[in-house]
């Protein structure tokens, strides 16, 4: 019915469309799985359920809350409304200090306890992650 060349063309178009949709599907699927949400201590307080996904929390390091041991670092993150206890072992960035903004990545154990796997470095003493700024403005 159709010539060979036309058939070949159809085949090509079909192939490209399949590959395209497949790769888009793949990308969106793994995006869903690998996205890290950001929460403030207040948002965590009102969380309906606690799952095992990695999240980021952000706020200020509460004054006089840093406690350091050989293996562990403990501190409290606050957005001046609610607080959350954080325990961490790993690299501590230089700008990590009491009264300064912080973003920590890790897992939520319960609504007031967070086990961090990473503390994000920031390059500027005045720099505040946009999330922290927003969380603080909302208070």
């Amino acid at each position: 019915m159709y010539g060979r060349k036309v058939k070949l063309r159809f085949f090509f178009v079909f192939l490209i469309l399949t590959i395209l949709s497949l790769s888009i599907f793949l990308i969106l699927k793994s995006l869903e799985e690998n996205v890290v949400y950001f929460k403030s201590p207040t948002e965590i307080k009102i969380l309906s359920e606690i799952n095992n996904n990695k999240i980021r929390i952000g706020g200020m390091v509460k004054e006089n809350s840093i406690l350091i041991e050989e293996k562990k670092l403990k501190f409290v993150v606050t957005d001046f409304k609610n607080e959350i206890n954080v325990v961490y072992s790993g690299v501590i960035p230089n700008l990590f200090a009491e009264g300064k903004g912080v973003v920590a990545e890790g897992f939520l154990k319960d609504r007031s306890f967070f086990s961090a796997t990473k503390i994000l470095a920031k390059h500027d003493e005045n720099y505040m992650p946009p999330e922290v700024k927003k969380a603080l403005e909302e208070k």
Partner: protein
Amino acid sequence: MASLVGYYSLLSGFFCSFLIIYFSIINFNDTKILDKRILSFTFFQFFFVVISFFGLIISFVVSDFSNETVFNHSHTTKPLFYKISGTWGNHEGSLLLWLLVLTLFIYLFLLKSVEQKKSYRILTLLFQEIIIIGFFVFLIKTSNPFNYITPIPKEGLGLNPILQDPALAIHPPVLYLGYVGSSIIFSSALAGVTLNYISKDWAKHIKNWVFISWIFLTLGILLGSIWAYYELGWGGFWFWDPVENVSLMPWLSLTTLLHCILVLEKRNILNSWAIILSITTFALSMCGTFLVRSGILNSVHTFANDPERGLFILIFLFILIFLSFFVFFFFHKNENKTLINLNWVSKETAILINNWFMMYFLIVVLIGTVYPIFLEVITSEKISVGPPFFHKLIIPFLIPFLIFMAIGPQLKWIKSNLKNKLYLILFLIISFILTVLIVKNLSINFFTNTILLTAAFFLFFITIRDFFKKKFNNLSQNIAHFGFSLLILSILFNNIFSNEIITNLKIGETFVSDKFKISFKDINQKDEQNYKAIIGKFEVIDSKGSNLIMSPELRIYNQPNIVTSEADIKTNLLTDKFMTMNFVQNQEYFNIRYQIKPFMVWIWISVILICFGGLISLFKKKYEN
């Protein structure tokens, strides 16, 4: 004074644009040869921007704090070298540098394209001037580097200390040479479309520009990566951070274009594809500038931000994209070339397949980078996309990509066959056996690592074979592909064999694990020109009993008051030993990180090899001519 000269020089340069456009339009249908005045004014425009740039440098050198840019980013105690590099270490200065390279490149383009048609040269110039005018307006209106402040402050605010670094001093100029080089490709592609000139000849002419921008872009990314490795103290070289991704995207697109141009030059096919890639590369370069400068990226290194600037670049970007679409759809004639015979087994098919793989990588990086922005705008949910996303989506496709990269160069143009290609299978088997021998004793994911390493080794051996077989034929391609295989191998081995210890120690304490013993001996203080250094002394004893003194450093800068850590890195050909020290405010403990990073130096070497491949191609062409 220098600021004043700089400012008026900048305005004069802006004015030149209109003269150039005026004379170009008059000249377009006029005579056979290019009007001398056009060339002169293009030179003057470049000259004025140079004066303006020097004006800014001098203001920085003499610490003229009546200039707002200098006040915001400099300090009298800063070493001279960083006063100068501070000129482009900030938003205003870096844009002036963009403009400088833009005007330089179009002038060079006019000089280097004498044998080309006049109409093509003028049209390229016109398109380029549109970009140049956009940048002039942007600079003068939203980010004038020569703003006054009164009363004149006594002291400046200083440059962010992590930017006070030799690698980062040259990183922006090199990267910009790559970014801006793509603007010439963009303009000339649009001119070519308008004149229906996208052909073998065009490919031959623009190839040099593609290679030059590609080399600079590659080097620029490498410098940034090296800097991140030793300065940020994370011990890695790539973090899939948005700011890194926006430089990777134009690179992927430009690399694709580079291969596509070769096909166009040889076979006169893929014309539309080359145009689309030229436009994409430049759009992505602009996007890079936009995303980094607008501050909408939630990145660990967002330096300057101002929403108004972001909006301007965004509008400008849309105008350019709209313009290029307009030109593409109205002027581009896809001559019916009696259905191109693309044979399944041929070099061009292999290149095309890898073109598509690279486009896929590009889409992955693009989505991973911009998705968080969209989601925040739409749902105000704040998210970030981390390395696992990119690894999961890119690594599986790297395997066929590597294999095609090895096979492609073995094929002939137009039509090839698979006879006498038994050695390919042989090499695949050898690579597989070698990989299994390496991987089997390690406690890592056997399946993925084996396949990935096999593919990388396959490319590695095939390229080595080609060095002997083909001698100097296609040397540039061979070196670049060899470099790439080396890069992938080094990254993989680096990943597999890395070792790290993180602990908190007080002075005098010792950390003991089954592999290392790290003793914190003491600390010393030293005063430098604009910072105070605290140097730790550590003794590291490994399981074999050899000991090593490491002395990482903390720097407390005076202005701005920032603490940075300088890693102590002991490099040799096989492995890097890397130690950083951080301190926590008001605590006796220091946070110590000690890493063993094998083959680190080979990652840098392989990227340099890749660039070198491009460089050879440039010179080879000269030699042949």
